[in-house]
């Protein structure tokens, strides 16, 4: 075994120990420490946004800027792909 393999094995085992340690100390599912924001959305989403689907009300209303960024990413990707491939079939 080379030094590189030994170093990799040590590094991976350290990461594995960290993962197992953090998995053993996780919160139980559905009981977070800080739930103020969740409770606010669950209680007020129907009267504030009128939507029965809380996820959509977060995505398009409470966090509209995030969706605007996602749409910009999609636009940039499409613009880049069309810019690369258009030159091939214009020749």
């Amino acid at each position: 075994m080379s030094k590189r393999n030994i170093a990799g094995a040590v590094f991976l085992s350290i990461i594995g120990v960290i993962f197992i340690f953090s998995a053993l100390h996780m919160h139980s599912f559905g009981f977070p420490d800080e739930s103020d924001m969740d409770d606010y959305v669950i209680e007020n989403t129907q009267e504030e946004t009128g939507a029965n689907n809380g996820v959509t009300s977060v995505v398009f209303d409470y966090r509209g800027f995030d969706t605007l960024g996602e749409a910009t990413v999609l636009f940039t990707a499409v613009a880049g792909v069309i810019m690369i491939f258009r030159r091939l079939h214009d020749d």
Partner: protein
Amino acid sequence: MIEMSRIVRTIVAIIFPFSMIYGLYVIAHGHLTPGGGFQGGAIVASACVMVLVAFGSKWTTEKIKEKRLSVFESVGAVAFIGLAFLGLIFGAVFFNNFLVGNDYLFGVVPLPGSSLADINTAGVLPLMNFAVGLKVIAGLFAIVLVMAYATTSYKEGKK
């Protein structure tokens, strides 16, 4: 990309309308059921890509041009940002849900707690879902269409 066999084309012609209806349903009911503009747009774009793979890029580019898809995508983006700015004008802040609470368009406020789904709710959320859905459909299909057509013309140019 050349067209596939007659069996594949027939099956795709049968399946295509159902997948279109399912994707448009996911977009239109984004404020009631799981899903929304991004997810439904991906479903509709997958249906269009299925047609592209089965019928070949030459047949498909006769039906729809990539320039028209770019126009659709820009219309979706402008509608999305325009709705956000309308919130700035009619409401208080950017992305304000100014349509909720009125009587005519998407203005009904549901009762708190679980209730039967009413499609006439949620203010600007359905309109934003439509805008983002149009943007995702046109964007994803334009990517695949341009790549397929570019590979075809590259092969033909080499011969």
